[in-house]
């Protein structure tokens, strides 16, 4: 979504909500209430994350990240990316600014991709939750399959990116 497209989308949403309100006022109110709940959630998560990114940007030297997670960091760097993704709490959109900061500080592309995918899908409290509701067999099998899937996705993302930079 381009920045210019956002006001247009907001206008369409406003118009659609008004239309719904004209026909079914209760539904329009439901839309706004559900939206409000999500807005409160996002507003409470993003500012602290962005502030942490700002601090990270100002305080952590580029050399450190390059050494720990850069192109030459090997399995150790990927393990760090994996651990960072697992221990962090919060939705995926909170990981975007953090991943970008890591990339800017010299972490390798592959490691940042691993970090993002792990953040999205592997969280210890979430696994416990999944075991509780969907059963240990389901949750652990999904976990065991997800790990190689993430490494493959990250490797493919890295390969496609290499290709692109070679063509340009």
């Amino acid at each position: 979504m381009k920045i210019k497209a956002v006001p247009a989308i907001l206008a369409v949403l406003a118009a659609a909500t008004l239309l719904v309100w004209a026909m079914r006022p209760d539904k329009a109110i439901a839309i706004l209430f559900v939206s409000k709940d999500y807005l409160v959630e996002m507003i409470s998560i993003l500012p602290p994350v962005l502030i942490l990114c700002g601090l990270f940007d100002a305080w952590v030297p580029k050399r450190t990240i390059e050494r720990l997670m850069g192109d030459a960091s090997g399995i150790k760097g990927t393990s760090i990316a994996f651990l960072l993704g697992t221990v962090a709490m919060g939705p995926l959109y909170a990981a975007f600014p953090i991943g970008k900061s890591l990339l800017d500080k010299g972490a390798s592309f592959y490691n940042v991709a691993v970090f993002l995918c792990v953040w999205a899908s592997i969280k210890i409290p979430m696994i416990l939750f999944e075991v509780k509701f969907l059963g240990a067999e389901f949750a652990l099998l999904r976990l065991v399959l997800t790990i190689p899937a993430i490494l493959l996705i990250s490797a493919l993302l890295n390969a496609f990116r290499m290709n692109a930079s070679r063509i340009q």
Partner: protein
Amino acid sequence: MEALRFFRRAFLSLAPSIVAIIWTIGFILTFLPSGLVLNTIGRNAGIIGVIIAAAFGSIVLIPAFIAFPLAASFLRQGADVRAIAAFVTTLVMVGVLTAPLEVKFFGRRFTLLRNSLSFVMALVIAFVMGEVLR
């Protein structure tokens, strides 16, 4: 001070996208009938049902503490285990609604690739799970 300026710039540029994303979610969740969902991903729905479940998981943004109980209740009511696995996996790995935010940080190409690769892998995971848990 540097950190604060970084925060202000980032937050102001993100705010309109966030409002647009959230408003869209409000629409979807208000109008989606859950009986229809169950019909679509039942054991008789087959591969199409699995793909629809994966697509549904890609689009909606539901917190895990709601999604897992929801998935469990679908499973008890007769949903296909592959569809549930696909739904849970794309729910966490693929984000169509948060894609605009991802594009802002990583660009269009990365976002498109990461989400479509994750979608395909979620289907693979779902079908393997279907074989194992049969």
